């Protein structure tokens, strides 16, 4: 480890968005040739910190020093010029160009304006070899599997000879041996003297790769320590050791018989052999880390994706849901994870969004009964506390919390027997979070069977009657109420044998 100034020193970084305090005076130091892992639950501020490093956001307070020199990073292109390579989780490659062209996009080796093919291929091959990535420079990126595209994205960052590379959840969509290939690449980059920031939920990877580990919680730095001798349990304790300040109201509710029954549900490459039940009035948590397949299971139960094998029953009768229509008719409702993409129609009003999935009830022979629709919309809006309850305003003029309530209202309007919630409180201010949980409680009380996916362990533990934990597409554990966050994390990270 060179004694000169570290490749990167971020000190006293704070950033807040209206309603959310994302980061509070966080410090980070990464030396050249060192792998510095950052761990923490969803919403702990990891991505925000990295976006500040990449110049996407400017910090409210705090300084960034590169090689000891204080700098202000204006934007992504400025960051790249300063030798900061970013590899985001969602890949940003050009599918219609070759691997070599993607790696050298923007500044390919050329003579008199013409691409020097040989030099291009050689340069790409060199980078790929150096990283030990078995990808052919001439292949079209669009035709590569995700794992190889991931390697190309890393090679692209590496090709601009950066001093610092940030890898954000690089193995989330990789299988075990694909991840191994990635580790070799990280080793090579480390040997080449690059400062590597590695963000991952897979604690085993952190132990195997990292030299230093920083744990974030609720936007604050918990601890930075050497990775020497660290165990998953230590990390989990640091990540979650918080007193349950925000108490989640949990009203005890009589549990009825099984409403949702899922047997041996499988879909190639996503999940395999899923068995789970949810009883009336019961809130069942579905935990697991990013890429464990929770959303994929939910989408298959609801009918957004088609399962290869297995059966789903609601109140005993089987549901062949290969379209959402069948899911809704069988009494299933699915509040999606990505509110912007799958939840709302921005151009439509609150009323129109609320009744979208249940127009059948408020129309006769295809004609919408205006008064009936207004009544349903107003009832649901007030019931869920959408404020201000003006149902004729465009939904995109409302806050994130209110928008989530509108999506809830949409699905409650279909009077579902089974309600699947996918990250219901993500990106929502604390006030709205409490409202949503009280709604969930009321629904359970009314006998609805609720399956809740959430990455916020305290929330899952506090609210669920039972918890299934998914690890790499399989149910790795079924934990009773009262289980500890450590139990969940161990199951989620594959510590506990299924």
């Amino acid at each position, binding site marked *: 480890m060179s004694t000169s100034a570290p490749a990167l020193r971020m000190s006293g970084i704070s950033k807040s968005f209206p309603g959310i305090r994302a980061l509070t005076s966080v410090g980070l130091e990464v030396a050249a040739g060192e792998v510095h892992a950052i761990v923490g639950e969803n919403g702990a501020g990891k991505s925000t910190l990295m976006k500040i490093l990449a110049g996407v956001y400017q910090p409210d307070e705090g300084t960034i020093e590169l090689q000891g020199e204080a700098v202000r990073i204006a934007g992504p292109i400025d960051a790249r010029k300063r030798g900061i390579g970013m590899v985001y989780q969602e890949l940003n490659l050009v599918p219609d*160009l*070759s691997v070599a062209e993607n790696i050298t996009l923007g500044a390919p080796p050329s003579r008199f304006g013409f691409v020097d093919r040989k030099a291009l291929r050689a340069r790409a091959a060199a980078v790929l070899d150096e990283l030990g990535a078995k990808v052919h420079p001439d292949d*079209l990126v669009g035709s590569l599997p995700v794992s190889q595209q991931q390697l190309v994205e890393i090679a692209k960052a590496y090709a601009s000879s950066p001093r610092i590379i940030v890898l954000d959840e690089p193995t989330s969509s990789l299988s075990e041996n694909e991840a191994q290939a990635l580790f070799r690449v990280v080793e090579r980059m480390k040997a080449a003297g690059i400062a590597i920031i590695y963000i991952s939920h897979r604690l085993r990877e952190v132990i195997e790769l990292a030299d230093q580990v920083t744990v974030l919680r609720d936007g604050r730095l918990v601890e930075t320590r050497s990775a020497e001798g660290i165990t998953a349990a230590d990390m989990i304790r640091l990540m979650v050791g918080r007193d349950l300040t925000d108490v989640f109201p949990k009203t005890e509710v009589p549990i009825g018989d099984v409403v949702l029954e899922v047997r041996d549900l499988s879909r190639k490459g996503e999940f395999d052999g899923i068995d789970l039940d949810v009883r009336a009035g019961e809130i069942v948590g579905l935990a697991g880390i990013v890429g464990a397949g929770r959303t994929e299971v939910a989408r298959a139960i609801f009918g957004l994706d088609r399962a290869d094998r297995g059966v789903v029953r609601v109140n005993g009768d089987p549901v062949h849901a290969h379209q959402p229509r069948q899911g809704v008719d069988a009494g299933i409702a699915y509040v999606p994870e990505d509110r912007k993409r799958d939840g709302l129609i921005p151009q439509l009003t609150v009323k129109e969004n609320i009744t979208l999935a249940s127009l059948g009830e408020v129309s006769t022979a295809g004609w919408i009964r205006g008064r009936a629709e207004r009544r349903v919309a107003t009832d649901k809006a007030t019931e869920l506390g959408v404020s201000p309850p003006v149902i004729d305003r465009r939904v995109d003029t409302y806050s994130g919390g209110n928008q989530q309530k509108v999506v809830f209202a949409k699905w409650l309007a279909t009077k579902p027997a089974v309600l699947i919630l996918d990250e219901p409180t993500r990106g929502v201010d604390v006030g709205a979070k409490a409202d949503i949980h009280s709604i969930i409680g009321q629904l359970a009380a009314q006998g609805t069977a609720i399956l809740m996916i959430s990455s916020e362990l305290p929330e899952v533990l506090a609210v669920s009657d039972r918890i299934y934990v998914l690890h790499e597409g399989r149910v790795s554990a079924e934990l009773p109420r009262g289980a500890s966050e450590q139990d969940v994390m161990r199951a989620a990270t594959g510590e506990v044998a299924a």
Partner: protein
Amino acid sequence: MRSITTVGAVAAVAALALSGCAASGEAGAEGDSLDICYVTAAESHAYVTPANKAFDEAAAAAGATVNRLSQEFDVQKGTDQLTTCVSQGADGIVLWPLDPQAYIPGMIAAKDAGIPLIIINSPMDAAAEEYYDSFTGPDVYEEGELSGEALNEVLGGTGKVVIIAGQAGNGTTIGRTDGFTDKLAELGSKIEVLQVVNADFDQQKALEASRDLITRFGDEIQGVYANDDTMALGFIDAWKESGRSLDALPPIVGINGQVQAFDLIRAGQYYATIVQSPAEDGKLAAETIIKLIKGGSVDKRLPIPLTVVTSANVDSVEPAF
């Protein structure tokens, strides 16, 4: 990244190379039957379609084969088709010019290739004269004059009229409109032309243009001259639509001698039409080109007879189509 269609280029070159060796076989078989290349105005038009039919019949009668290329009223397509006829080595070319001079380069090529060429139905610029052997068909300029005479007669030499002209820039339109106005000047008539609108020899466009004319000038219109009967029908539709009675229709003069015009003359809602039979137009052109191919000589200008039809002789004259 080698392009995905390198093979595309190879195939293209192959096609060209292939043509090199397939030298045998002239496109138009020389043989005995005469090969006429007929570049007509269109395939679906009130006047053009019967003319094409008559042309084919006359050619078949003389044992000639006709390769008909339809311009669909597109001058650009017509000039290309003319060059095709020349390169096909046709024995004779009949051209329906939609433009007074765009075809001249093509006609020069025909002359160089020694292929006899005549033009049918529409006149061309004087500059084109040396490049065609004969112009058969109605004398549109004369038709314009006859119409001018007829309208001037019925209006007693004064009054305000509107002109519904054909396709802008088309030889027939220019001939018929200029013939009309020149005749009025020649007769010293005090008829004033309120406006000239173009309706492309199309009833629907004439209807829309007439609606605007009637709104703009209304009862000021004391006379109507339409470059053909089809467009005149459009004016009458517009007149009815504006709620005016048919008896108050100003005198209308049209050209073609269509059946509908004859009925309207009998009903007193149409002053005169000039019979220009498309069948004769087609037949005369076919006979002229065949005579030329067989080495005969023909006059530079072969008009088809024009008869002005009014209520007086409406029953004794055959409608054109």
